[in-house]
């Protein structure tokens, strides 16, 4: 994934942005995407879990360091 330097995005956030792009942008050929709403929800739920666990991890690390 290419992200220019700048206001640094966490890798996990970039992953959400990436998924956001593949789900909502890009050409459609059939005009009828097979992916069901439930699947889309699943994609997002999964990423939220990753994000939540990353922030929990950071908190725990900060607590351990403090």
């Amino acid at each position, binding site marked *: 994934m290419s992200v220019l330097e700048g206001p640094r995005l966490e890798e996990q956030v970039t992953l959400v942005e990436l998924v956001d792009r593949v789900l909502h942008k890009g050409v459609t050929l059939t005009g009828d995407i097979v992916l069901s709403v439930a699947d889309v929800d699943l*994609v997002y739920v999964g990423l939220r879990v990753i994000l939540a666990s990353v922030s929990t991890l950071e908190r725990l690390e900060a607590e351990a360091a403090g």
Partner: protein
Amino acid sequence: MIHVYAFVRGLDDLPDVPGVSGAGLSKVPFGDVVAVVSTRDAGSATDPRADAVAHGLVVEALAATATAVVPVRFGETFEDDDALRAAVVEREAQLRAALDLVGNCVEIGVRVQAPAATAVAAASGTDYLRARLAESAHSAELEERLKPYARASVKAQGAETAFLVERPEAAAAVDAVRAFADEHPHLSVRWTGPWAPYSFGGGAQ
């Protein structure tokens, strides 16, 4: 089942990245336009989370090597080559035009938000509307500022504008976004990219 990632031009070798469900990538040529696809057994178990990420990573890997890439939205699958062919033939002119447009370009997404632009943050309806108006004025200003670098731009969903920028200009374009953000400290200016040109495929987006 054939999963389609993108249409490309000027791709020498397929990138060494796994497709959805770990499948290998292959090319299906349509004249000078090539579809990059992978195949898996219909009905085999899939993990949409991992597959969506894999799809995006394949597209980015293609964008890094091909001279032009038009990403396909995640979820486009076809029963076999014939079904894919039938769908592509119908859109060939659109795809060719899109590939002409995006050659050697990347996309940078910029989101400009004024404070109180969300209904929750706004103290009143008037505040909210005022913020939205300011936002659209600022978006127009940003577009003007990026004109020297952008081959095209398109307003995407939300407050995002996608800019199509020639690869060598990407860093300068981002500097311009940064300068704009510095001059408007009250705005939230968030940019992502460079991405494969997702927003410039023409037709249904």
